[in-house]
């Protein structure tokens, strides 16, 4: 068990990690909503003015584009969370190591 002040620092690090996690997820979910519900449904009629490789754009988003974007979003999430997890583990190690240099830690 770590001493109380280290426990508190670790808990604070945990909260920081969680906040970063939530912000990251919310950003990705905004993209999810903007593409799936936005481009695919809400603005589909307006986007049909433009065309992409023989598709009306709104129709393409509804039947192709949104699915492609969904796959990419989960890929970015898995990659990004691996980075956030690594940052968090480093922070934790630093807190514990810093504590290890104090004489009490050896008890």
């Amino acid at each position, binding site marked *: 068990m770590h001493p109380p002040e280290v426990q508190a620092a670790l808990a604070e690090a945990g909260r920081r990690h969680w906040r970063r996690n939530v912000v990251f997820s919310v950003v990705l979910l905004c993209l999810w909503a903007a593409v799936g519900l936005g481009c695919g*449904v809400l603005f589909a009629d307006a986007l049909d003015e433009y065309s992409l490789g023989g598709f*009306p754009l*709104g129709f393409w988003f509804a039947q192709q584009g949104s699915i492609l974007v969904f796959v990419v979003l*989960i890929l970015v999430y898995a990659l990004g969370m691996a980075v956030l997890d690594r940052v968090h*583990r480093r922070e934790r190690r630093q807190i514990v190591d810093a504590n290890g240099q104090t004489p009490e830690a050896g008890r």
Partner: protein
Amino acid sequence: MSVQAWTFVFVLSTFALYLFVAWRARVRDTHGFYVAGRGVPAIANGMATAADWMSAASFLSMAGLISSIGYAGGVYLMGWTGGFVLLALLLAPYLRKFGHFTVPDFVGDRFESKVARLVALVCALFISFTYVAGQMRGVGIVFARFLEVDVTVGIVIGMALVFVYATLGGMKGITWTQVAQYWVLISAFVIPVIAISMRLTGAAVPQIGMGSDLQSTGEALLKTLDDLNRELGFASYTTPFEASGWDKVNVLCTALALMVGTAGLPHVIVRFYTVKNVQAARWSGFWALFFIALLYLTAPAAAAFARYYVIHSLDGKTAQELPGWYETWSRTGLIVWLDDGDGKLEYRGPEKASENELFRIGTLSATDFADIRAQHQRWLDSGGELGVDGRDKLTTSKLAGPDLDILVLAMPEMAELAAWIIALIAAGGLAAALSTASGLLLVISSSVAHDLYYRMLRPQASEAERLKLSRTAIGVAVVIAGVVGIYPPGFVAQVVAFAFGLAASSFFPVLVLGVFSRRIGAVPAVAGMVAGIAFTGSYILGTVYFGVPRWCFGIRPEGIGAVGMLVNFGVAFALMPFCKGASEAAQALVDSVREPEEE
């Protein structure tokens, strides 16, 4: 070799493969039985999740459905893939970190409430039974259509197969058979579509072919479809919100309800319990959607090609000019032609319903239809003096147009592919149905043996006892599912809407709140679930069975789960300030779920 001989070869060899895989993966403890020993690699779990998720409906019916409603078909494409984003970002990693066996486990432990566990348990059972009955039916239909075996016999064969490999290997056996089933179903779907794309547009990639020009006329395929649809009295293929019943509100709500419902389906969620750690859960979310997207990006192309092919090869043709596949499938009643006397087939949409001559038998009995056909022949022979014009009868019975499943079933024949590819479709349809059925049966078994018996009734039950009960529960569930498949209640199609609505309005909100709010206690969570279920359930029951008008913004029953989810969240948030919050232990549980693992 004939198509039927090939079909026997494919079906029997894939069945042998599934049994062999299950035998290799047999298990001896509950850990292996429920979560495959948590040793499934992320990519294999992705494939298994894809097979688990893609049901007989995705494989056989979805392309046909898109083909008939055009743009609005995107609702199913976006809904059933978009849900995986929610699942991968909001639920999968946290539930994996929590690390028990089932969804009711998390609900019960997080909210420290037996009532919450019980409500979740009942929902899981209801959703799974609804779904599995449709899968067994799908197995029977594939047998009946391709091997000319009776539907009942087909279902019994399917039951026996699932029974053996699910009881033997539990989750582990199911996982590895699902991996095999994924490859069978994806190749069966994609190969014919590539062939059709090359024939029609010259592009080997169907997703590009769909936006290309037709080789025969030089006109763009989608533009041709828009023009043909308009000319024949259908809504335009690509224009949004034109098909009847699919205005903007309905498209939005249905897409959202399917997305949220997908994220709340227990048989998909439990797949994420089978991987090694949290990071593997995130990656298997990616692989799952990647493998699903291979089919879901191909289905709309298949829909567009089949739409063109059906109109082009049937409309305006005489009996001699009709293609061979018309003959094959008209014998099964999936497509029938009642002529108006000019000897030319006319396929027309809702706006020219009185001129349409193409129908399906649907739910009519064979004798009823024979009667309609005989009366129609009299009507034709007498020049309208005697008999009855059968077309009016079929139109008012909502049986205009061919059965939607026919598009996928007849795809290889449309492209004039070799007999063995046609047989591959049968094996693919069976793989899709069986993989989904086995995943659902496992949820049923673990709900009964783990959540109900072990966690609620007899916590002192021994490991061996629990394993035996799990196997028995799967056996009983297979039999019930088979019986419901053989004697389907007339409402199977609507019941699936019910399953999604329920998952959207109960599981999704309660799981998200459980992870993302430290404070929420049992009372707001349970009240939210009950309110969501009550709202969604009463709306679907009312509008589908009791003729209540669609009083909530005219939303169709499939889409009401989106509103039900909001009701659930709303009630939970409203009650939160007035109710007891989560205990210290529950808050510690939330903290541990949020904390990434040590390396």
